[in-house]
């Protein structure tokens, strides 16, 4: 057994461990132990990765492991990581860890909830470690399906509608993607004569430009749906609003990153020429996402909707930066994925905690919470400031990296669009401060809220972990950006 497969194995063992659990306490124990192991594994992976790179190992993928599991079609179980996936694994394990604490008192059907949640996590981890397109797609679907049940069963509001919408739209995306992936497969032979699903081999063999032109948009849109690209983003507000806390966290924090990661790994790395040709079209779409999401967030009344639209805006920025096809902007894109993942998870965790107390998410019905629950409120302000890109938090470095990187593009069109995307930072400030001003400051709106209590210890663990990560990246961004950049230089040298 190799090291990376542990990322899939541990969640599966957790699933098995849940089976004999009798009460919520045992379930929590299993969940906490499992997610801590995962967190430890990913931290260890980061250290090992840095160590390997420092030792001069310049192989594209490290810690590789390969085994054929369906020889007829040349499908392998093939894993390996580069800097980008290491960072994504770290993000996923942090979110899973905090998600467990955020759903500490999840009722009813606690066992089933955690099992689906961990199954989702299995898919996510598997996706990030895969180097084989088919295995990747397999894990992708594993990550999507539990979403339906998690929202449909444990959600709030119009949960069945939202769950159905989310699943159908994402499935629609994966249908497009599947066409794209098979297109890639049947054009992957190059001069070798054998079709392959292995990403590195495909990249080496090269796909004919005619095929790229057809399959690039399919793959990009397919993953773009999950990355909330305009106009395929409408599952996001409803889905996030209905999902239970931990699911929102995992979904916005990690699952949406699958989209961006896939766009990069599959669409851009395998079909760079087509990406270069068609980037203008997708830039318009993602540029719209950025500004449009921000404006959309300005007038929402439900906390989760505000955040969902803000995610559309921030994730739009990720895809926007990826399309700039230069090293700085792409590094920025992955920094933004990491930073948005942490920040939005923090937001959803806090919203869940506030909702658990006030039983409303309508910003008009809240006010003056700062005095009632100072810890949660201050954390909310911090999350807000991180989200609007304040220096000292991760949002700033990633956004600046994207803007500076994008502005280095030699084409005037790209630069003008960068300026358009920049303007989102003002609108972000508008909606963040609007919410903060309405719900945290001012007088107490509702007399019943006066008796509410502040965060409990397990909520504090979740919140503090996330805040520490956000500020850590904000203060020492080079640590992360170096990991990412080291891998991009290999892959973006066309």
């Amino acid at each position, binding site marked *: 057994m190799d090291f990376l497969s542990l990322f899939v194995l541990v969640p599966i063992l957790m699933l098995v461990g849940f089976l004999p659990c009798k009460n919520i306490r045992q379930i929590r124990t299993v969940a906490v132990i499992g997610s801590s192991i995962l967190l430890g594994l990913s931290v260890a992976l980061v250290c090992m990765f840095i160590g390997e790179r420092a030792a001069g190992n310049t192989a594209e993928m490290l810690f590789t492991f390969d085994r054929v599991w369906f020889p007829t079609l040349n499908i392998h179980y093939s894993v390996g990581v580069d800097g980008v996936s290491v960072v994504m694994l770290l993000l996923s394990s942090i979110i899973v860890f905090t998600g467990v604490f955020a759903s500490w008192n999840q009722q009813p059907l606690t066992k089933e909830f955690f099992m689906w949640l961990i199954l989702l996590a299995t898919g996510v981890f598997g996706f990030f470690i895969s180097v084989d397109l088919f295995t990747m797609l397999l894990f992708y679907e594993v990550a999507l399906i539990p979403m339906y049940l998690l929202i449909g069963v444990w959600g709030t509001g119009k949960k069945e509608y939202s769950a159905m919408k989310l699943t159908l739209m994402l499935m629609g995306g994966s249908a497009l993607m599947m066409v794209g992936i098979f297109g890639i497969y049947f054009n992957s032979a190059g001069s070798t004569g054998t079709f392959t699903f292995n990403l590195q081999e495909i990249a080496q063999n090269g796909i004919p430009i005619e095929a790229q032109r057809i399959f690039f948009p399919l793959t990009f849109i397919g993953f773009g749906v999950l990355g909330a690209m305009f106009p395929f983003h409408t599952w996001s507000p409803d889905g996030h609003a209905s999902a239970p806390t931990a699911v929102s966290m995992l979904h916005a924090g990690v699952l949406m990153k699958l989209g961006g990661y896939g766009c990069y790994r599959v669409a851009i790395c395998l079909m760079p020429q087509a990406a270069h040709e068609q980037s203008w079209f997708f830039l318009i779409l993602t540029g719209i996402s950025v500004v449009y999401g921000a404006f959309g967030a300005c007038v929402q009344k439900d906390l989760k909707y505000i955040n969902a639209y803000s995610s559309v805006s921030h994730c739009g920025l990720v895809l926007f930066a990826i399309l700039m096809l230069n090293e700085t902007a792409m590094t920025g894109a992955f920094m933004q994925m990491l930073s948005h993942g942490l920040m939005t998870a923090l937001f959803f965790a806090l919203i869940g905690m506030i909702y658990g107390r006030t039983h409303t998410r309508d910003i008009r019905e809240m006010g003056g919470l700062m005095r009632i629950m100072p810890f949660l409120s201050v954390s909310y302000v911090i999350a807000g400031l991180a989200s609007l890109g304040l220096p000292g938090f991760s949002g700033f470095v990633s956004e*600046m990296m994207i803007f500076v990187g994008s*502005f280095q593009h030699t084409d005037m069109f790209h630069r003008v669009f960068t300026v358009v995307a920049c303007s989102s930072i003002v609108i972000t400030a508008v909606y963040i401060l609007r919410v903060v001003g309405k719900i945290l400051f001012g007088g107490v709106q509702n007399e019943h809220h006066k008796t509410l209590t502040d965060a409990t210890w397990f909520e504090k663990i979740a919140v503090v972990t996330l805040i520490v990560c956000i500020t850590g990246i904000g203060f020492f961004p080079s640590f992360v*950006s170096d990991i990412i950049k080291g891998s991009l230089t290999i892959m973006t040298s066309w």
Partner: protein
Amino acid sequence: MSYTLIIVALPFLMFLFLGLVGGKMKPVVAGLIGTTGLIISTVLSYIAAGSYFFSVGKIGETYQTIVPMNFEWLRFTDKLHIDLGIMLDPISVMMLVVITTVSLMVHIYSFGYMKGERGFQRYYALLSLFSFSMLGLVIAPNIFQMYIFWELVGVSSYSLIGFYYTKPSAVAASKKAFIVTRFADLFFLIGILVLSFYSGTFSFRDLTSPAGCAFAQSITDTFMGWSVVSWAMMLIFIGGAGKSAMLPFHIWLPDAMEGPTPVSALIHAATMVVAGVFLVARMFPVYIFGAPDVLTIITYIGATTALFAAVIACTQTDIKRVLAFSTISQIAYMITALGVSGYGAHEGLGYMASMFHLFTHAFFKALLFLGAGAVIHAVHSNEMDSMGGLRKYLPITHITFLIACLSISGIPPFSGFFSKDEILVAAFEKNQIVFWCLYFCAGLTAFYMFRLYYRIFWGDNNKVYQHTPHEAPASMTIPLIFLAALTCVVGFIPFSEFISTDKTVFHTHIEWSIASLSILVAVTGIAIATWMYRKKNTSSDKVTASIKGLYTAAYHKFYFDEIWIFVTKKIIFNGISQPVAWFDRHVVDGFMNLQSTITNYLSRKIKFTQSGEIQDYAWAFMMGAVVIISLLVFI
């Protein structure tokens, strides 16, 4: 000089310390810790200034730029990387002194003013954060570090304006301040992007060195008929205009007076609002060599703002708002002075004058605000109408306030006279229209300051107060006296020997022809104010009635707030956001729902073929089998 790091780092550590554990301490202890930290910073910055100006920095007649510390923080490309570091040159050292002094005064003053307030520890933590950000801003060796601290300054200002967060007006004011300045910051950022794209560097040293300026001239690219350097510098200036409350971004500053008064003194009078001036001064060589056309625009914006704010200040009745508009007007003076400046020894008089005015203004404006704070502390109101005859009750405040008023009006030998005189001389040599505009403003300044002074301390001498006003405690009066003393002496500093455009010492002397003119107009202003407000009489009402239209317009701040509210509420919210949200729900999402509706409709239509009756299926199966078999057999 690497100990300058401590000047910056110490307030940050204080912020972290007080922010994390301050809540568990006694308020006074937290305040003392914060103040101690700042005292150390202040002392160190005095030492730094002393050694920089008199030994380390000065080689021959020229001041050196010293970079005691610089490391790469985040690398974008090979050429572009954000460095964090310290750069000492005359203006940054001067700013270190200004910031630490005023900040220290405010720290001490707040012991009295904020006593018993809820969140005292938080207040000191935020003050430390602000001091840190402002210090980091002025010592920045590259434009990106400046931008970082620029944002931090913005957020600490936000949290201090909204310090009384249960008060809706304070929350609204803080939000407004943040968003307006953030809007301007966007242009700043774009300006940085444009500039760095063409120049390939963030560093001030590369940008503002003669070689860097030469490159600025060599860039010939244009965008929409204007050279890209001009675009970049104009955008950067807009950023500065946002922080420095230039027209039309001034609207946030008067509202920012919702914050505690010491905060207004520190942030919205002495330090943060001059960041824009500092920015233009920092980039001055690029302006003068690369984009002189922008400098002309800056001049006119400055002059207009000065006049505009001075007129409004004459009509306001909230004493802090009068001071706020006066601040806008005085900062506009500095900006104008930069605009009319040239490069070189005496050519660069405007630049020197601007920095000189920044320096003197910081002290006397802080003094005015702190004095106003003492008044508010005594009468528990901001409105002039509830004041009058306070000179009997508040002797120390009265005297110090008077000194500050005389100084800002430009009466010798107080500091304002010297710096304002230099600005007028610079303007006179360059641009007569601007000169007369500023000259008129000087008169207005004297008038509204003495209107304020008389209405607080004289006016209705027999005013009856519910609680007898009493002089503020020593923690508040000591800073007043200290600042008043500074106001009296700093004017005599030969500023041109320290600060000049090319960092070379030159000598100036007072142009008595212009100085006498300016004293004349100041005295006239004071005289009119004395006639109108010294005693409670009707002359002021008569004057107001005679210029009713102008008065009403000025009283409503020329309706700028209304315009901004129209823009934000009507255009941004109702005009863009609402339609976007509607469009999203009904068109984009509607399209998705439409697909599902169509699918549903079709499946409903064809579902009757699936009756669920086994015999129907069997019948269809049979018939189908018969048809297929007969086809196979007979064809």
